[in-house]
């Protein structure tokens, strides 16, 4: 099992989420794959939005989720995939993925 930690950083250095911060936001929905596909994503985790000029960074787990979301991956399938890969509870995983997706929606203005 891979080490589980998902994070997303803005240019101001704010950590939006990681394994130390748990959230109860279940209302977020997935951003559209079309909006995410315009993002320029580097293997280093640097992400640039060519439309807004915003940039942010994601860790390895965030990068993996972002790539799945770009392919219009279904949430249930995504959670199943991540559940097999990481040692994390189902509820925690779902909560974190949904919050991460909500942050992405905010960044791409979706």
């Amino acid at each position, binding site marked *: 099992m891979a080490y589980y930690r998902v994070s997303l950083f803005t240019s101001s250095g704010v950590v939006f989420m990681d394994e130390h911060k748990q959230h109860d936001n279940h209302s977020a929905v997935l951003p559209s794959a079309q909006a995410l596909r315009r993002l320029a994503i580097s293997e280093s985790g640097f992400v*640039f939005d060519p*439309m807004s*000029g915003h940039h942010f960074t994601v860790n390895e787990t965030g990068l993996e989720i972002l790539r799945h979301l770009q392919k219009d991956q279904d949430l249930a399938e995504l959670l199943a995939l991540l559940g097999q890969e990481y040692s994390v509870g189902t509820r925690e995983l779902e909560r974190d993925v949904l919050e991460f997706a909500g942050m992405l929606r905010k960044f791409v203005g979706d």
Partner: protein
Amino acid sequence: MNSIDLTVAITGMNARADNPGPGVAVARCLRDAPEFTGRIIGLGYDALDPGLYLREYCDSAYLLPYPSAGDEAFMSSLRAIHDSEKIDIILPCLDAELPGMVRLTPQFDELGIRYLLPTPEQLRLRNKDRLPELARHAGIHCPEIKSVTHSGFFYQCQEEGWSYPMVVKGLFYGAHIVHSADEAADAFREIAAEWGYPVLVQRLVEGEEYNLTAVCDGSGSMLGEVMMKKMAVTDKGKAWSGVSIFDQTLYDASAALIRAINWRGPLEVEVMRDNTGHYQLIEINPRFPAWIYLSAGVGRNLPLMLLQLILGQEIAAIPAARPGVLFIRHALENIVQQSEFEAVIMNGGQQLNPVPGPSPAATANEASRQATRNKP
């Protein structure tokens, strides 16, 4: 590739770190272009304008009388410079120059100096006090703007539905975000003293600033646009760093504005993206912006394109927009010998890069100095 071996005069050689003029950046774009092999004449208004001493960009440099000295003083000075330098093309880079330059185009024609400038009507249509009307015509949001002629307005503006903070602006330059009537009245007096009346007030738009620059041919088309998001600004709100972007919505909005006025020449569209994601038109500047070197950085050298347009040359297909290219401005100390400074102070200009034969600067200096003495 058509080589351009001509003499190009560029104004706006001021480059103070907090609010640089575009002239040095325009000259730098041309110097970077393999197609340009000509001479560059830098024109400024103050002996401390840095571009007047930058020989990597300018071959000669001269002082002009301020626009407030009048058309006659300006033409007298320009004619003297032209007699020596044989200017082929002039590229004005400052807002306050444009009305005079447009008026003087018949005299430019007589001298054989080429240009690409808007008509007086085009210039008027994008005046700051006309922006809401233009924006409405083009289908774009624009914060309300009002002309103010008395500082008493700021103490009773709430009765007219205005609230603080708001922006107090000059017709050509200057913008202050003010939070109280006293602060607004101070800004009003400062702007009126420097730029005259009317002073404008604009409702403040909260959001992020985006700019677009382009060259327009007068047929309503926009050529080679470059868009930029400001990443850091100076105390005066000028871009200190920025990143190139491409947003179809901003492209369409700018194209609609340009179609509405059939703009001719370079321009800059300034917008704010408000908190609801809508673009709000803030200003349309009738010249290249100070960050124009980014256009060369993304492979769309707009000053070069402007020369090609002026000369009637075929405009080569431009590369696709390249979002993600940054500029980060920096301050640099240029060492200037006393003799160079003296030449600008005493003679109104200097030759930076010698050319074979008699010095053109020597003959232009006397008339230029006479005209410069007229400045306020």
